[in-house]
């Protein structure tokens, strides 16, 4: 426009010959078009970036400052009924390396790292020589050591959080609590049985980090971590310790191969203690053998022997076949059925039913058993839970062996009445004895604490029958019975001994399993205690001599721990006995 204005004065630009040149019109149009095209290209590019490719670019941008982080959750604790720790997780670090980067470490750095991790330099070099992109150098490193390693800022060395499980009670509760592997996976015992509830679920959150790596904002919905639930067992760690110490004593005194003990609360069916020997330290599981790992009380069956006799007697009483004082002729201590002969360890004459149990006469029990058909006896054993797994949810619990009654021959029925030809686990045996403690009801067992009382089970016997059997059991620990050593001073206790031959390769070997199952106190039963000693080889092999004293110590201690008042007058002789034991 300015070009056309003609200045009043001065040079007449319009008269410049250059401006006089007539340019072709297309040139200006071409320039205009090119400029427009360039703008269009910009708009198109803008559209492409802002609209078409928006998501991708947004994501790229966010990835510069947004981070997804995992929030770890810890595994639940296992505590006993009073809240004492049995298993607890604490955080540890695992140190790992990218070998390619880590090989650039200088020699003194390597030496420092090896020293902190308490490993040889050669071992460290061996791990770094790997051609993988990820190698664990050491797992479960204590946090303090890990912090010192992190402070060295070594190239290619990284750390990750993990947990380590500790078992403060160690070998005492090893079989019931079990243990976990490195990845928080339950491998044995309660750790495996309750894996589902113990396991924590890690949470996740998305955050914005600033230049210094600080978290400045939460973005979107965070998923909070769910810590694993704590499991409260029925176990009473005091009683557990008592049972452990006394069983260990008994196994050592009698040079036995193994042993097991169970204490059950007779009112609720809770397992207050469960011990197996030999045992192991779950905190240090190097050099672990199968024999140590066996949870014998649950996974091993044995022929129980005489401890089964009270059930036979109770069935006969219940059916009205005999009375408490019916006399049975057990002379001359032998009984021939078909081609087989059964005999008593010590021959007896005529005994009442109560005395048959008290003195543990095989002949007397067999005679009682042969008064009813096999089917009734099978139904009794089946009803008591023999031949069925106890359903505690424990790994490896066994059902035992109870053959169908149709194949029973009379001799088998006779031997089964005193506990041969049938295989049971110690847990099954202890559970079956709850019928004598709970007025005829068979209680379901529980590993975890039971808070809602009272617990009821299937009725097997009438209260009257049970009262009579209880007094027979009490007679067995009186002078003249098979287990006077099982008495507990100040309390009325009852129980039955068992001495059974072990079967090896289908033959009875001259090896024994001594057992004792008892209830205490008899006037108002609170506890069922079962003790089993495998292959006692010193100081006798009878249940009353081997397992009886252990029962007395465990039951006595447990009654005192639970604050159960004595129900028997204390005799001076008892007191003297007690003093000798201490």
């Amino acid at each position, binding site marked *: 426009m300015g070009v056309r204005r003609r200045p009043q004065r001065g040079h007449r630009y319009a008269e410049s010959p250059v401006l006089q040149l007539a340019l072709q019109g297309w040139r200006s149009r071409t320039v205009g078009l090119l400029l427009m095209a360039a703008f269009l290209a910009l708009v198109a590019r803008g559209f492409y970036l802002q609209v078409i490719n928006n998501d991708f670019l947004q994501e790229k941008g966010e990835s510069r400052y947004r981070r997804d982080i995992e929030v770890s959750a810890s595994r639940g604790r296992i505590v006993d009924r009073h809240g004492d*720790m049995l298993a607890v997780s604490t955080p540890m670090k695992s140190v790992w390396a990218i070998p390619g980067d880590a090989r650039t470490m200088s020699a003194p750095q390597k030496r420092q790292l090896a020293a902190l991790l308490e490993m040889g330099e050669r071992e460290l070099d061996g791990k770094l020589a790997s051609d993988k992109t990820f190698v664990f150098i050491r797992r479960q490193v204590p946090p303090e050591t890990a912090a010192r390693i992190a402070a060295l800022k070594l190239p290619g060395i990284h750390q990750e959080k993990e947990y380590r499980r500790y078992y403060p009670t160690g070998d005492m509760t090893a079989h019931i609590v079990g243990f976990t592997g490195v990845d928080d996976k339950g491998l044995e015992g309660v750790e495996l049985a309750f894996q589902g509830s113990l396991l924590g679920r890690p949470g996740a959150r998305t955050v914005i980090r600033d230049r210094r790596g600080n978290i400045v*904002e939460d973005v979107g919905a965070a998923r909070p971590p769910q810590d694993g639930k704590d499991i409260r067992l029925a176990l009473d760690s005091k009683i557990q*310790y008592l049972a452990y110490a006394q069983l260990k004593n008994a196994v050592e005194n009698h040079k036995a191969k193994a042993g097991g003990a169970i204490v059950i609360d007779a009112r609720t069916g809770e397992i207050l203690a469960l011990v197996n020997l030999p045992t192991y330290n779950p905190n240090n599981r190097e050099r672990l053998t199968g024999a140590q790992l066996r949870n014998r009380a649950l996974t091993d069956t044995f022929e129980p022997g005489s401890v089964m006799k009270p059930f036979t007697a109770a069935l006969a009483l219940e059916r009205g076949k005999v009375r408490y004082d019916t006399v049975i002729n057990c002379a001359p201590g032998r009984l021939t059925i078909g081609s087989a002969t059964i005999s008593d360890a010590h021959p007896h004459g005529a005994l009442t039913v109560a005395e048959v149990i008290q003195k543990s006469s095989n002949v007397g029990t067999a005679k009682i058993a042969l008064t009813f058909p096999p089917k009734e006896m099978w139904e009794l054993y089946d009803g008591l839970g023999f031949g069925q797994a106890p359903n505690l949810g424990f790994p490896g619990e066994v059902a035992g062996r109870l053959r169908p009654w149709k194949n029973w021959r009379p001799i088998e029925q006779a031997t089964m009445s005193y506990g041969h030809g049938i295989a049971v686990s110690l847990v099954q045996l202890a559970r079956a004895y709850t019928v004598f403690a709970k007025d005829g009801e068979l209680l379901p067992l529980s590993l975890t604490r039971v808070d809602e009382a009272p617990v009821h089970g299937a009725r097997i016997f009438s209260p009257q029958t049970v009262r009579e059997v209880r007094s027979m059991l009490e007679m067995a620990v009186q002078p003249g019975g098979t287990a006077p050593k099982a008495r507990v001073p100040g309390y009325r206790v009852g129980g039955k001994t068992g001495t059974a031959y072990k079967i090896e390769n289908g033959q009875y070997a001259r090896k024994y399993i001594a057992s004792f199952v008892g209830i205490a106190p008899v006037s108002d039963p609170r506890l069922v205690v079962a003790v089993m000693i495998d292959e006692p080889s010193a100081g006798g092999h009878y249940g009353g001599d081997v397992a009886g004293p252990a029962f007395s110590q465990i039951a006595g201690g447990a009654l005192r721990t639970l604050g159960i008042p*004595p129900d028997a007058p204390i005799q001076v002789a008892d007191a003297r006995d007690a003093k000798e034991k201490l």
Partner: protein
Amino acid sequence: MLRFNIFLLVVVVICALGVVTSQHRARKLFQELEGEQERARQLDVEFGQLQLEMSTWATHPRIEKIARERLHMVTPDAMGRVVPAAAKKGGR
């Protein structure tokens, strides 16, 4: 009209600055919260470790050993126990 527009412009600028400062303050506070939560987690871990230590010191075998060997304690025999009358009645 122009004056009103200038007034609005000033208001917008002030608001914008306010947003920036409050955002900054929110982030500062968030960092603080984050730090405190981290501390809480660490204290929780320490609590767990102390509990573990306590239960290790309080294992029954250790207690029994100290009671018997260092303090010379003994389990009272049956004659040495006194049962309160109430417990006796309640137990039956």
